[in-house]
């Protein structure tokens, strides 16, 4: 971490040469004057042009350029902004549709490639990956989740390596060294098998503070230090309240209730009913809700069958058995607009933790080899009246078309309320940054 020091010491020298080192560059049509050689991501963000970034960390030189989340066009050529130093006459495009979509896709890829169960993660709320998802308004990943089985390494003395959460940004590899200059982390293997290896011997030689610094350096919750993952309450975490893009305080938009009444159906599939409970958390607005919607099939009113075609269907939970699939398909038939609300419906969520392990192994562990099962007297439940269990938990949009997604585990009550209102009124969704969460 000595590199960081030399950099800050050099600031006085920089100030002296500032006057004769000025250059002008253009970012998204805006002319910006700054010192030559500075990092493009920093220059843009200082000037109110948001370039999302993940692996980029101010004090790491040369920049890593691994995550590709900051991809821009510099003088027409696509490349990461974090590896660019500003030059005179440079023309940078950051916010074309093509670039915005590509950058969003990369963050989606990270969610699909890893196993990111936000509600169960100590870093949730302080996680750079999650933060980028919030800034981009990412409600779901266009890519199928790959659910690769990854280890959690409890061997190091002080740290826990949670490989499910690692995005391979290279920060720890390039920045965490022992006092005598030995690397504590290194990439191992390659391709989709790549993972960060930790040297147990060198890890034990880090001081307590160095270990904690490493944990904070990690953009996700992949490097944890035992006893240090103190969870803070909602609202007090780094990325809870304030967007990086818009520094103004959030104002709740005025909402006028639509005049027309619409019919809504809801269901909980492979979920925990938590999303339904959150829906009830809208408190007094429940009275507004019954004024603008007519509830059809739903656990809230215990209507078991559809009585007519509905306008909106809200789905909680993914599909873990054949019955879920049938019900989901019925909802698709009977509802004009289908909304997946909550992480389980969107990509599988907590129940999909089993997806990294073959179904047979899960069932054998649960029913045959478990500590309470009597030898020769146990079996895996199988009966024609029981729904058949699927090989993995499927996201709803892997089975039918889903029109809208409301993220959260569970989604914030206001988030659900505003989404339903916008759908009923046929208006674009406007959700506050502070209400948009994955946990």
């Amino acid at each position, binding site marked *: 971490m000595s590199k960081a020091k030399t950099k800050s010491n050099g600031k006085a020298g920089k100030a002296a040469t500032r006057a004769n080192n000025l250059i002008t560059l253009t970012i998204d049509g805006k002319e910006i004057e700054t010192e030559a050689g500075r990092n493009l991501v920093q220059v843009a963000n200082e000037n109110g042009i948001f370039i999302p970034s993940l692996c980029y960390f101010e004090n790491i030189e*040369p*920049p890593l*350029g*691994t*995550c*590709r*989340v900051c*991809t821009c066009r510099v003088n027409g050529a696509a*490349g*990461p902004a974090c*590896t660019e130093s500003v030059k005179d006459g440079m023309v940078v495009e950051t916010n074309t549709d*093509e670039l915005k*979509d*590509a950058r969003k*896709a990369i963050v989606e*890829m*990270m969610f*699909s*490639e890893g196993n990111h169960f936000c509600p169960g993660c100590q870093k949730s709320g302080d996680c750079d990956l999650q933060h980028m998802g919030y800034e981009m308004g990412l409600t779901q990943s266009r*890519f*199928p989740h*790959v659910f690769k089985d990854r280890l959690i390494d409890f061997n190091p003395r002080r740290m826990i390596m949670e490989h499910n959460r690692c*995005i*391979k940004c*290279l920060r720890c590899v390039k920045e965490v060294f*022992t006092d005598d*200059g*030995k*690397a*504590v*982390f*290194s*990439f*191992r*293997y*390659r*391709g*989709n098998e*790549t993972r960060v*290896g*930790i*040297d147990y*011997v*060198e890890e034990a030689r880090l001081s307590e503070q160095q270990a904690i610094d490493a944990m904070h350096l990690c953009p996700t919750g992949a490097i944890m230090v035992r006893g240090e993952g103190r969870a803070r309450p909602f609202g007090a975490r780094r990325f809870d309240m304030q967007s990086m893009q818009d520094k103004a305080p959030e104002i709740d938009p005025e909402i006028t209730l639509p005049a027309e009444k619409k019919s809504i159906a809801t269901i909980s599939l492979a979920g925990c009913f938590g999303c339904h409970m959150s829906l009830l958390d809208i408190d007094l607005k429940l009275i507004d809700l019954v004024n603008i919607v007519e509830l059809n099939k739903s656990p809230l009113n215990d209507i078991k069958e559809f009585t007519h075609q509905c306008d909106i269907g809200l789905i909680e939970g993914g599909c873990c058995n*054949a019955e879920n*699939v049938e019900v989901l398909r019925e909802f*698709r*038939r009977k509802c004009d607009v289908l909304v997946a609300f909550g992480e389980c419906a969107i990509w599988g969520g907590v129940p999909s933790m089993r997806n990294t392990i*073959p*179904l047979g192994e899960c*069932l054998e562990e649960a029913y045959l080899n478990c500590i309470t099962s009597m030898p020769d007297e146990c*079996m*895996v439940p199988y009966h024609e009246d029981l729904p*058949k269990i*699927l*090989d*993995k938990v499927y996201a709803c*949009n892997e089975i*039918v*078309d889903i029109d809208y997604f409301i993220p959260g585990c569970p989604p914030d009550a206001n988030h659900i309320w505003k989404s339903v209102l916008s759908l009923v009124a046929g208006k674009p969704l406007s959700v506050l940054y502070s209400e948009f969460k994955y946990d």
Partner: protein
Amino acid sequence: MNNKPALTLTRPELLDYLWSAQNEHGYIRSEDIDACSNALGISRIEVEGVISFYHFFHRQPSGEFTIYLNNSVVSESKGFARVKEAFEMATGGTFNGVDPSGQWGLFETACIGLSDMEPAALIDFYPFTNLNSLKVRDIVAKLKQGVSPAEICDPVPDHIRAVPEGEKAILLRHYDPGIALAKLCDLTPQTVLEEIKRSGLRGMGGAFFPTGLKWEACRKDPESPKYIFCNADEGEPGTFKDRVLMNALPGLMLEGMAIAGYAVGSSIGTIYLRAEYTWMKDKLQHTIEHFRKMNLLGKNICGIEGFDFDIRLQLGAGAYVCGEETAMLNSLEGKRGEPRNKRFYPTERGYMQKPTVINNVETFCAAARIIQLGADHYLQTGTPASPGTKLLSVSGDCRLPGIYEIEWGTTVREILEQSEADRPYFIQVSGPSGECISMDEADRKISMDDLVSEGSIMIFSRSRDILNILRNYNRFFKHESCGLCTPCRAGNFILEKKLALFADKLALQSDVDDVQSWGKIMQLTCRCGLGKTAPNALLMAQQKFPDYFETIVNANPERLNKGFSLKEAVREYDRFSS
């Protein structure tokens, strides 16, 4: 820890040390890692990181005999599956592991540069070609009797099938050692540079960067020392032209490197030879020694005062991405072969951050011929945009697979005719990262302004399934990605899942659209050429063979079913029914 390290080692020697440890014990032991880590003063995990990057390094015993069977697309179409089964039957082992007796290590590997003689395998790095079940049984029986692989391995013929007529042949013409270097007596480094620039020679490895400009940039850089590297890491599946050049004209390559050294002012040359070509190492080493004796390498070469240049061989260890020049530099420095960020050209900051020229085997050979014959001679062949000739490795469904030296501007159809292709249908130009074409495009010319080729043409007949070809490419890229950047590491993995939908007949038109848009994102955002080009064939195949994709895509107008089969999804549970 306080012991004085018994071993002295520098970081660039790490790969060599790991090779010697593995050759001695059959795998790299923990003691070997300790030795490296102590000698270099680096942590063990850093050494482990390097070892695990290269697929020919093993951390577990890899068998008394280590068999690497090529699983490239050409091998697959020539009977890979049967040969694989035959090896398993004969040895009692299963692939990607070692059999219980510890005698046989069976591993699949990417293209080993023998596409004209597939299926092919390396046994202890000796080549075995044109395999079939009978031959495999015979080989294994002999090895069991104690015959060494060196005694029974197959000769590797060059299969040079066609050369341009008369004076138009540039590369594959008569050669005597020193024929090009002798010309340097009358030329200054500056005139050599001018001659190369005037010839319009471009890098033949696939990037086609003007060689003269590269050499000039390196020469002008004030830093020293300067380095010359020959990229003999020919990993693009279906390419074997550099193998043939090094086998037939090893001296020409050495002369090309020495000429580059003369032109840019460097005295240090290194050949980065892919481990798949280990069987050629001795031959190259002998040629280098022969050249030293003839004063074609060493000090004051050809009597030119101050012209010192020497060459050493560096063996790779199995990683396609190391053919990318900045990845190769990292590998040469004894690190993981990850491509660098494109902030500097290697001519500015290359090997050890010093100015470096990296050219491909064919480029060095062509440079030597240009000095020998003169740029004017070179300019008389080919087309104005791409003068000279090109070596093509032709493989797949044709009667005459092998090497064709063609003038730039030759059409694909001419090559198909010369090689006696069998009902050509799907033609892959320039390897999986290149361009695939249908017969509608057979009249396209191989040249810079039309269809560029780094040197490979793979021909697939009507009887081959396009999806199988594309899935083979995808597996290759997924495995060979260095893992550093998200779109390549995750993108190829995700595309694999998507292609499985096509194979299961569950894909919809929307899945075709997804592949197109996801592939474009990879092209836009990946860090190096591997990721940027990985989706090329997939995207083009969908555009150029719409009829084929129509037949495998499920035209489902409803919104109820998206690539999901309930029957398949409950199959695993149903086994508990009894």
